[in-house]
């Protein structure tokens, strides 16, 4: 990406030889640079009007290059990038050993990874790695008849985050382009770079393990889901062909769009077609899939590599935050934890059992416990995860078998309708405002559009 300002060319993430601070400034947005300037010198009231003037502006803080670089790296690590590869890190780590290796470089997969920044809070470990990427572009010469091949080195950061409570790790990176002048055989592939970083991460004591969420994701996308749905899919079926399908609206699933393409009327036929299409897409070999997350209102493209599942986030104007990233990663990892160990034999897996329920089926905790011979607490835990994952919707009714004068007392997802005093036909009051007098069950969600919100 290039941007011209004040007669100076600014190239995103360009490595400026001999000026690491300038290299970091090239890697950040103007807002981030302004935040850094404020934090370095709150009383100075520094104004930075453009990227071209950022070096001059940051110098007004009168702090050392090391302090400035440290602050810039801290700010860079606080906001998520577009790409995220997640994995599990089950073992505890001695972080003081990692801290000692700041500014050192480790070679892996033909690249040199420098450990630029390390940080630990009570919730998370953060390590920023950086490596160089060569960019070759054809640049017009001044006489306009000749183009010259120009090589520029750019900085590519990869931020490792490990959440202590869940043992989930992620590698977050902005991605890079190597320019039109780079030959195909010299192009760096993301899986290769990530494999190198993971080797370094392993060497620091983190023990990363791949999480293959492809199969568990299919369970989440079986039937309807109020939390996430697929609106683009690139699949292959052996002996049939490759299909790249996309819905025009993110709130409409691919299967629904296919049904509309075939002009199927609303009714049983359309429902059956959507079910069949969903099953076919799940059973095909997925190259990539694009999901829309209804709570976060963002899109993620998932690619499945040998090193793990990579997410590309499209924020759609929503606030970029690691809270959203962690929520989605935890959900996917949770599905893997429940399904992964039983791939190929999922009959008695609670999440699979729940996903295979017919749309609209009501299930109570004791029914799940009896069906799969589970302890009551485990059954409740599985049902609550299924609610979180969007497969089930909680439904409510007053906890009584007596007739109630003004209420049918059927299952409803609107618990606020029960929030008042009712009288049974025997004259007994039952106060819906007391949650211990309201019974809860769970309903299998239908197609996209049905939710508790």
């Amino acid at each position: 990406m290039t941007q011209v300002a004040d007669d100076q060319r600014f190239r995103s993430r360009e490595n400026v030889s001999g000026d690491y601070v300038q290299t970091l400034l090239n890697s950040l947005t103007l807002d981030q640079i302004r935040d850094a300037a404020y934090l370095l010198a709150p009383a100075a009231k520094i104004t930075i009007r453009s990227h071209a003037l950022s070096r001059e502006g940051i110098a007004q803080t009168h702090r050392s290059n090391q302090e400035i670089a440290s602050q810039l790296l801290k700010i860079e690590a606080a906001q998520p990038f577009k790409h995220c590869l997640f994995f599990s890190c089950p073992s505890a780590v001695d972080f003081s050993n990692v801290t000692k290796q700041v500014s050192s470089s480790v070679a892996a997969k033909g690249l040199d990874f420098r450990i630029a920044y390390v940080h630990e809070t009570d919730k998370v470990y953060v390590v920023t790695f950086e490596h160089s990427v060569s960019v070759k572009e054809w640049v017009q010469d001044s006489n306009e008849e000749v183009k010259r091949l120009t090589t520029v080195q750019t900085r590519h950061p990869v931020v490792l985050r490990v959440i202590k409570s869940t043992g989930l790790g992620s590698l977050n990176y902005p991605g890079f382009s190597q320019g039109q002048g780079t030959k195909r055989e010299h192009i760096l592939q993301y899986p290769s770079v990530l494999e190198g970083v993971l080797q370094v991460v392993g060497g620091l004591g983190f023990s990363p393990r791949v999480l293959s969420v492809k199969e568990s994701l299919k369970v989440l996308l079986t039937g309807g889901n109020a939390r996430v749905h697929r609106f683009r899919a690139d699949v292959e079926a052996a002996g049939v062909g490759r299909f790249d399908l996309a819905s025009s609206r993110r709130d409409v699933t691919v299967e629904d769009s296919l049904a509309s393409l075939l002009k199927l009327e609303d009714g049983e036929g359309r429902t059956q077609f959507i079910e069949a299409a969903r099953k076919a897409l799940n059973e095909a070999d997925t190259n990539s899939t694009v999901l829309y997350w209804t709570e976060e209102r963002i899109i993620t493209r998932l690619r499945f590599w040998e090193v793990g599942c990579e997410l590309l986030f499209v924020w759609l104007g929503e606030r970029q935050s690691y809270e959203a990233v962690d929520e989605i990663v935890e959900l996917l990892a949770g599905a893997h934890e429940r399904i992964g160990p039983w791939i190929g034999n999922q009959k008695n897996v609670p999440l699979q059992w729940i996903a295979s329920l017919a749309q609209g089926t009501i299930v109570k905790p004791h029914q799940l416990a009896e069906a799969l011979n589970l302890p009551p607490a485990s059954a409740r835990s599985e049902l609550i995860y299924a609610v979180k994952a969007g497969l089930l919707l909680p439904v409510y009714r007053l906890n009584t078998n007596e007739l109630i004068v003004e209420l049918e007392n059927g299952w409803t997802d609107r618990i606020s309708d029960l929030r008042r005093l009712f009288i049974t036909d025997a004259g007994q009051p039952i106060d819906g405002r007391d949650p211990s007098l309201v019974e809860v069950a769970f309903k299998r969600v239908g197609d996209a559009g049905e939710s508790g919100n």
Partner: protein
Amino acid sequence: MTSYTAAEFISDCINRKVNLNDELLNYLCPTNRERLKQLLKRLEHVRGLVPKDIAAQRKTFNKVVGAIRAHKHVSVASVQGVKSTLTGKLLERIIKTLVDECQPVEAITNLRTTTAEIDVLLQLGVSASVVPMLSAAGTHIIGEAKCYMSGFKQEWVNELSGLMQQHLCTHSILFVGCPSKVLQREHRFGLQLHAANGHHVVPMGLKQLTEVADGANFLDVLGRQYVDSMTGAVSLSI
């Protein structure tokens, strides 16, 4: 066969750190939105009054009696005082309306303690753990109301932080009545700095009150504002 009650469901969600949906939050903390809208409209009306014009209207001459009509508040300063008192009372009523039927929270206003007077004390019940901020706050949260038209001031946060120390409180809400705006960088970082020292101040302004009046749940709005304050989000606004 014993039924699975909503109380157990809420408890399980809290233990497994699952966010409750809007429907359940509205059950736990409904808000009388019509009343809230009325109060907000009244607040806007009162703040739009000009003390100078009102004082001038009151200085009328009664020709029958041959004297200036008597009125309790004739001077500009006096009328301004009444306006400020009314504004403060309206904000207090707004805060009470927000949490009136809220199960997890009970509000006590104008509480005088041995060291200070607190505008509002929110006592937290068992089900308060449904919202991360309330869960982290423990037993109580203090609230301060600042209904000035001037912009957000860092001094209010510093003052509230001091009050929190005196009352062994880790979380507080700063209700502000100034015009809605995105908070400036120094205010965002000021809030983060206090949070790093264990004093979490969550600003709530007219923007958030209007969101609740328009249908959002108070606990949900409070939760989002809390996260934005802690993370210093660029979009943090009042």
